């Protein structure tokens, strides 16, 4: 599981059987020349949820976000917000706002003018707009910096101004394009918390793009894992971790061992393709066969490396063709050193079969 305590999720507890769909993406594709950035993607996003688009670079998550935002037009497919087809609408006519990766704060305007920009364009008088802007800045704790120039602010502060500028318009939908990627680790963790709290406070639906799985797991109600222009799996964080649908998801989220168990999980069949996903914390290392608990399966292998970092010990071993990884919150087991012959064992119940 990812490090750090999990954040409270808003969930879809209001009506678990029929959450209200705010954004409906149907069969969306986008090609650039011969390159297919997005391949027939469909996704329903619920009102009030915090959903992340997670995947490695090039997977299409940013393309999808920009399509939703109106900065790209789809090659085929449809985008509907609140039931209304917005596929042909320019960005300024869609009921959403974007927090850009590089913040995109107007350098020739003060912070206040930046945040007041949206309300002004919507028709508010200067006084009204500035009042709203100040409220939004209060929410992110930067009301004191209203008269400053964005150029004179730190990355974290700019990020918050950019957030205030987006939420002041009370959009139905907020798109965030890797907003925390330029921040250092400490600041990042703090901002994750603040963002989550803000989202719950305002009730706005957040679509959050990131390549960092810890971030996605910590903040999201649901995660859409993407690869090569397709959505591999959309689910709550825990479900994705425990029951990944494809090999890619299993490998991308957390770390995975792939063990060749048979369909009924009773035994190992080394001739079969390894379709059982086993997380490293579920793999135990034993030196004597007698110590192995009843019902557990075991593989014999040789230790290739041991690391001990931050209270976690990792034992890497090779069992025949399989490369395995065991992890636990303690020092490595006694008598286990590099080159040693050991038994890697697990409870079959912990195995999740791909595609099952």
């Amino acid at each position, binding site marked *: 599981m990812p490090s750090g305590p999990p954040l409270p999720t808003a969930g879809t507890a209001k009506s678990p059987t029929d959450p209200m769909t705010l954004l409906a993406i149907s069969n969306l594709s986008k090609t650039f020349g011969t390159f297919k950035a997005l391949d027939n993607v469909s996704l329903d996003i619920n009102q009030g949820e915090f959903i992340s688009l997670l995947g490695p670079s090039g997977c299409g998550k940013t393309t999808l976000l920009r399509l939703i935002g*109106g*900065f*790209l*037009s789809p090659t085929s497919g449809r985008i509907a917000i609140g039931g209304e087809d917005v*596929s*042909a*609408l*320019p*960005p300024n006519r869609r009921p959403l706002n974007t927090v850009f990766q590089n913040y995109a704060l107007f350098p020739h305007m003060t912070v206040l003018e930046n945040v007041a920009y949206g309300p002004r364009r919507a028709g508010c008088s200067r006084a009204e707009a500035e009042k709203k802007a100040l409220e939004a800045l209060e929410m992110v704790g930067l009301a004191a910096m209203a008269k400053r120039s964005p150029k004179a602010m730190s990355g974290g502060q700019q990020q918050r101004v950019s957030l205030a500028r987006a939420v002041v318009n009370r959009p139905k939908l907020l798109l965030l394009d890797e907003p925390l990627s330029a921040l250092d680790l400490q600041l990042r963790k703090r901002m994750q918390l603040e963002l989550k709290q803000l989202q719950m406070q305002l009730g706005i639906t957040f679509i959050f793009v990131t390549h960092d799985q810890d971030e996605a797991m910590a903040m999201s109600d649901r995660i859409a894992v993407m690869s090569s222009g397709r959505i591999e799996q959309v689910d709550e964080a825990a479900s994705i971790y425990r029951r990944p649908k494809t090999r890619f998801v299993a490998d991308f989220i957390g770390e995975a061992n792939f063990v060749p168990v048979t369909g009924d999980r009773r035994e190992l069949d080394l001739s079969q393709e390894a379709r059982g996903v086993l997380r490293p914390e579920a793999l135990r290392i034993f030196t004597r066969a007698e110590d192995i608990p009843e019902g557990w399966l075991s593989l014999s292998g040789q230790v290739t490396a041991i690391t001990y970092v931050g209270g976690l010990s990792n034992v890497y071993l090779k069992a025949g063709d399989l490369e395995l990884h065991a992890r636990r919150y303690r020092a490595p087991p006694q008598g286990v050193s590099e080159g040693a012959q050991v038994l890697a064992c697990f409870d079959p119940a912990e195995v999740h079969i791909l595609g099952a």
Partner: protein
Amino acid sequence: MSQSRTTILWLLAFPVCLLTAFFVMPLSVVLISSFTSGEGQFTFGQYGRILLDSYHWDVILVTFRLAVLSTLICVLLGYPLAWYLVRIVKWRSWRRACVILLILPLFTSNIVRSFGWMILLGRTGLVNEFLVSFGFVDRPLRFLGTETGILIGLVYILLPFMVLTIGNALAKVDPALEQASRDLGAGSARTFFSITFPLTAHGVLAGGIIVFSMAISAYVTPALLSGGKVTVLAMLAFQQYSTVFDFNYGGALSITLLVFTIALIGIASWLAKPRTPELEGK
């Protein structure tokens, strides 16, 4: 964005119309007339005249000679100046002042610059006074109306371009490479010839080609400093339009100049891309 197609069309409407009407069309007209005979028929004859008339051959030779020499001199003077500005000058304000001095001539009219040389190169001009009073010559030399005079004026016009091109190439050379060379035992001369110069060679070549193409098509400077005694290609072309009124022949001369320039610029931009030398396979 969604309506990008129409937006692009609206944005490009005016510039494209301007370009087509007053750049592409006129050049096309010249191109066509260059293939037209006096009677209005299609012919290669106009180009033939360029090649077959011995007087015109002389003009072409003079033009080339001047262009080659001025390019060479620009390299010989331009490289040291570029080196000075990039490597030797340490104060930003002095470098800035020098760059301003370098660019200043470019902001003055050709005629003003050539006029300055007319004053300097006359029989009683500063240059002759200097030469005579320091004993280099017995009597004042004639510069105006000679190729030498035109050369001095041409180099003056072209030098800033050469310095800027070489300077840019020089500025991009990683000093660590030269330090490595010294570290490995090479002296400063060897380092220059083996490391620095080759790395800037593409800049020198590109600058040289650009300067050469400008020299080939120069009009004002040769016209003023020739004293009626020297003719270059651009002057010949201009005559066809101003006095002879043979637009067809003028067209052939113009197109020749144009094609030559385009070819040179094409080569220059290909060369201007810095390339790492291919590693020989062993």
